[in-house]
């Protein structure tokens, strides 16, 4: 669920990026398969496989501090020009035996929203691994656009099999 702003920024610097499933072990798997060095996710699992074999918070922080010290710029300055797209996370509670992947209404809705967003955002739907929850993430470059989508277009009620769960703003 790496923010789209990072993807665009890396693409601008000609750095290839591959999205793995959520979870540091899947990132590790992808990196191993491609023999790449750097990986991570928003929650803070960062892997630098030339330094360590697994994600390690201390080593990652040292890497960042090293970048700060050697560049002589602050963290905020290093990230100038890269502003994360606002993300909205909606948790939809599922009935235990619902097959959400087979729901055509949901699929059509997702497609429509994605069409609206085009290159300026994305919609992600995934099931929680631990709870009967569907996590819906909307990400858009424009906060106003994301809010509008949330208000008008993207309603969990429009998906007849589920009732709307708790809505969480991951990054207001």
């Amino acid at each position: 669920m790496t923010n789209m702003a990072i993807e665009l920024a890396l693409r601008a610097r000609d750095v290839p990026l591959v999205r793995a499933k959520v979870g540091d072990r899947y990132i590790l798997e992808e990196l191993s398969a491609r023999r790449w060095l750097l990986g991570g996710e928003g929650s803070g699992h960062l892997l630098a496989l030339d330094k360590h074999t697994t994600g390690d918070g201390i080593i990652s922080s040292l890497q960042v501090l090293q970048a700060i010290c050697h560049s002589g710029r602050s963290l905020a300055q290093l990230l100038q020009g890269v502003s994360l797209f606002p993300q909205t996370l909606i948790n939809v509670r599922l009935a235990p035996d619902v097959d959400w992947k087979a729901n055509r209404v949901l699929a059509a809705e997702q497609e429509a929203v994605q069409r609206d967003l085009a290159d300026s955002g994305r919609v992600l739907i995934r099931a929680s691994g631990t709870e009967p929850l569907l996590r819906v993430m909307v990400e858009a470059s424009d906060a106003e656009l994301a809010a509008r989508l949330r208000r008008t277009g993207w309603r969990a009620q429009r998906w007849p099999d589920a009732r709307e769960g708790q809505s969480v703003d991951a990054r207001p």
Partner: protein
Amino acid sequence: MRRIIDEQYAIARKLIEDNRDKMHAMASALLEWETIDGEQIDDIMAGKPPRPPKDWTPSASKPSGTNPPVSTDGRRPQWPDPAIDACTQRGLMAPFALVPAVSMLWRARVWLRPHIAARYEPRPSARLTLSAHGNLADSALHDRPRASARDGHRQRDAGFLLRRRPPSGQRRRASPIASAWSARAPTSSTSAANPLGRARTRRACRKRLDRVMPVLEHACKLGVPVSADTSRPEVMRAALALGADIINDVRALRMPGALEVVAAHAGCGVCLMHMLGDDPAVMQQAPAYDDVVADVRSFLHERMLVIQHAGVAKSACVLDPGIGFGKTPEHNWALMQGLDKLLTLGQPLLIGWSRKSMLGALTGRAEERSPARAAWPQRWPACNAARSIVRVHDVAATVDALAVWRRSGLVELAAGGRQTHAPTQRRRWHDATSAPTASAARWARRRSRLTFCCASAMRWAACFAATAARADGGDRQGHAHLGLHDRVGARSGLSRRPASTSLLSGPIPTPGGGLPDARAAPGPRRGDQRLAQPVPRQRHQVLLGRTARSCPTTGSWRSRRALGESPQWVDSASLGKARRIDDASGRYIEFCKSTVRHDLSLRGLKIVIDAAHGAAYHVAPDVFHELGADVVAIGCTPDGLNINDGVGATAPAALVEAVAEHRADYGVALDGDADRLLMVDAGGRVFNGDELLYVMVAERLAKGRRSKARWAP
């Protein structure tokens, strides 16, 4: 002095030489009787042949010239014992369990609380499964099971078990299998080398199968669990193929091939019984134990370990002390009194002793062969023992008796209970282990169940995965690193599998557990050439719930699957070897420092470290301090329960506040297991993993080190 010694020596020598014949007579008498008394010595000294001792009775087996193996202390009976011989003649001691009988066990779940509940907290796991067995005459083959099932069903908490037997008049006679067995026994006149005997064995077995299988087939259709009582692997195989659920073996799967049959059949229940020796034809001939309860317990324990090692789940296992199998009535009573000790094995017991001859002997009505009523009171302690299964012949009467007991307060029975404590726990394990993203440790923490057993199971699972990885990787060495948790000091469980183990001293962050050994080794480090080279991947290491190596999900899946199983034990010869790594945290700090350029100095930076009251609580501040930073540490006072509690990467607000309060330049927030990172700058802006990743990438691009960096794993 020399003169005295010489004189006395000469006297002694003369005495011996003069009485040499008497000395030899004494020696031979001692050889013959072991002890000689005063009268015999008088005889010898008088030059006569000594008389035999007073209580000496010449044996019938004298012709060979050897003395009979009988001592006079009365503890061991003479052979042949007339009483036992008579029993054998009557067929009482014939191999009861050899008959591969078909039993049906309709299990009902009955909750039972011991009547000492007022003083003792009643264990919710206490469970009694009641079943019964009855003779099945050929004529009643199809009616009795149904009738008994109806009977039991109406009563809700009873069942029945059918044991196929000839009519009582010729009980335990003319059993083809039994004769086949005696033909195969090495002491028998028909030796195993005799082809006629073997042919007869095969014929008998086939005949027995032909007779039993229709009954079994019928029983399997009744929709109740069916238990097949047999020792023979071929019968087991046939029974399991027909749909039998339980194998009840009086030999505890000691016949060659039996263990493999059961192990290959997943989900099949096993009842292991103790029997003295392995031949029921001779088991009652002078049974002797040092301590019958201890002997039976150690036998059952050993068999349990063996079958678990073969892959049979512990939960599938029921133990039977084998009342009457190679035991005198005293032994049986001792076993009944020692049921508590048998229950310490942690397995349910199956106790079947209704209609045993010992009851008849006690009541003095041996001819009735233990009236059913006599079985009730003595079943009482068995009922009282938690999770026992009691096998009776008379279902309805037993159920009636239990109803009366329950009403009268002698025993509290709550019929219809479906769940017991133990299975609930097991199910939770399985839930947790099948959840694709929850790691085992996290699961345990969430459930607040980081108990000794849970920690043991996790260690075992990690070790299991390491061993399995070794099996997959050919020549790769399975290796596990074991850190220390502040609250769980025990490290058993890991070295109980044949994997090598490193014991790390002191709590260190979880990622530190996956350090390659070459990197953790002491020695010059910063700028060391070794670090620039990739470490050969010869060791496959497993963190809890995760491998740090090439097949992460496979390893983790293995760990979780192993978590759902009972830990298995190995004999001492195949225990893994553990190596102690002292100063693991010091090494880890050095390792962390070695990952940055040697000229990096954090001097002049004020950094707040938030270790989330977690694994890095005493390592992380030291790393930054040793690199020159001015360190303020928060979240570094774990008390075992406050991990991630309002601090750390999952709750960055605390760090933002601390950075502002201390006017620090940066804040570093780790999570409980120190594999996640968030950072905060002086302005209170939180940088998440995505942004930090970008900074790391940008730094490498700026340095142009992209081509130089080597892929380490």
